[in-house]
């Protein structure tokens, strides 16, 4: 589904990603861990098409296409979804309006008619129950005045409505208490399927207790420096990221 080869990315003159490789197949769950400033959010932004990053080398093939050639909205319509580390507040635009516009943009892209207003309401209420959110969130402005945890849940709600193929979660677990974490994990798990893949960026091994990854990667200094399974996350948690530096020095 996603094949990243030797990706190098600059912000201005500064190289942030320094030859990153990652293979993700449909149905898989990949966790990416790594120290602050390693380039995790940069990777998620580059995948979703945010401006301000210069791709200086390598390639990103998604569903057989060079992803970087698509506008951000086309990537979204083709099934790439980013749950933002810092979701944006959009005053004056209601959640339900955005959810409907998002869903319809995808339907239109697939050549389908716009969804009927009643059908949409039923659809979205089902999703909102999945995330144990109050229905009143639908009518509030997007993320405006939401707590950190509510914003993260709202990202997953958008994901559930858009039903993407490649879900990138950038520290969705940060700032969540254990109950909220369980709810978010439940939402994510219920979306797992054999034709959908997840890339979860996280700082904490605990998320992986609730969402079982198939692979765990360590991203440090702009590269994947180590890949493994769940045990790698436990080892990292125990030994800290310095352990990697020591290994690298050997």
């Amino acid at each position, binding site marked *: 589904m996603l094949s990243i080869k030797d990706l190098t990315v600059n912000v201005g003159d500064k190289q942030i990603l320094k030859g990153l490789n990652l293979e993700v197949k449909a149905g898989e769950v990949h966790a990416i861990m790594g120290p602050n400033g390693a380039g995790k959010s940069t990777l998620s932004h580059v995948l979703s098409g945010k401006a301000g990053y210069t791709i200086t080398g390598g390639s990103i093939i998604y569903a057989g296409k060079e992803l970087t050639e698509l506008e*951000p*909205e086309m990537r*979204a319509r083709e099934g790439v979804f980013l749950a933002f580390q810092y*979701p944006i507040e959009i005053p004056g635009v209601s959640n339900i309006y955005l959810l409907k*516009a998002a869903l319809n943009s995808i339907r239109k892209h697939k050549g389908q008619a716009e969804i009927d207003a009643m059908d949409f309401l039923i659809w979205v209420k089902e999703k909102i129950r999945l995330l144990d959110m109050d229905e009143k969130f639908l009518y509030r402005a997007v993320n405006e005045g939401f707590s950190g945890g509510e914003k993260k849940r709202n990202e997953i709600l958008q994901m559930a409505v858009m039903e993407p193929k490649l879900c990138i979660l950038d520290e969705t677990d940060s700032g969540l208490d254990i109950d909220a974490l369980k709810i978010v994990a439940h939402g994510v798990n219920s979306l797992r399927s054999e034709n959908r893949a997840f890339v979860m960026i996280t700082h904490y091994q605990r998320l992986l207790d609730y969402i079982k990854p198939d692979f765990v990667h360590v991203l440090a200094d702009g590269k994947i420096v180590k890949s493994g399974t769940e045990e790698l996350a436990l080892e990292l948690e125990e030994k800290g990221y310095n352990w990697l530096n020591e290994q690298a020095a050997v």
Partner: protein
Amino acid sequence: METKLVSYYSDSYSEHAALLSGQSVLWLQALRHAALETFAATGFPTLREEEWKYTNVTAIEKHRFKPVANSEAINAELLKTYLLDDMWNLVFVDGKFSAEHSQLDGLNNEVEFHNLAYVLATQPEKLEPYLAQAVSNDEHNFVAFNTAWFNDGLFLNIPAHQVLTKPIQILHLTVSPDCLATSRNIFVAGKNSEAQIIETFVGENAYLNTVVNEVFLAENANLTIHKLQSESKQAYHFGGTYVKQQPHARFQHHNFSFGALLARTDLHVDLETAAECSLNGLYLGVKRQHIDTHTRINHNKPHGISREFYKGILDNRARGVFQGRIVVAKDAQQTDSDMHNRNLLLSANAEVDTKPQLEIYADDVKCAHGVTVGQLEEKSIFYLQSRGINIATARNILTFAFANEMVEMVSIPTLKKLLATKLLNLLPV
């Protein structure tokens, strides 16, 4: 010796004066005469005047606007769009009251409402306590001009304790080419009374519309005025509203400025003890429109509250001007005042001049103010794009949301709907 004309509009006055209302009312004639003299001395305001330094009105002298005796036929479609349900509608065509198009069924008998020309012909003494009392001709020469030229308008007198169950809309429709429409309106809200007014300006062709509203709120009265300025894109609009609030009176103003080639709104509020006003507005300029708003709040006595929130959107080569002046008199202790102006520039050639001005002579007051001028935020646009929405739509959604906040403050459903529809039509596709 050659004498240079200051203004066509003073020179041609005598030609048209006989058509104007109140010819036999001596005190009015004296008032008009004095106003004309004031105007004739210097003509329309110039860029040299501090309050007019961003707004050049010389184009008006290139036209020969004049009062219209017989109006062109009304565009029925236009009228239908603006005649709102669930309210009383008073229609003025080319500045003159049109009973034919007005709808006043069921308006409470105790509420006194007549067009000014009628009152001047029948009981002119009723106007004497109010006319030129909320604003003087010295304010600026558009006021003097209006006093000299006005022909009609509305006299609305709400008795004490009356609550109007529906809003009153004053619909100013200007349809004849080169029309000079000059209207003077007097709104009197008695003690403990409550009412909502909508003044709407629409039209076709090039014309000049000058309006002066004098508003008197007795103790504890509560009045809301909505202004929808949606004049023809070739028109010149100068509208002033001058409000006197007795103690504990409350006044709300919602000002939507969308139309005209050149538009200026003056809004002055005088607050006595514990009176409260809230002024909200949205100006939206495209192409080469010039939209100017000058507000002034005078806190004259203690415990007054004022809230002011204006937003502006300027696209293409449009220019906006906002000046919000708040004067807190020495006596006006415990004043609580808050003013904000936020502007969104959608093009590199659009421009806004915004200037909050606080003059505080009391020492125990709470006054906050803030001004912002900016573009749509890239991160917000990207967020919407990442949800599948194309960039042009994303920009529109964000612009609409910015503007719609002001529409949401309006409590009359039919007006709110009309405003939202207008916004959708006006914003760049």
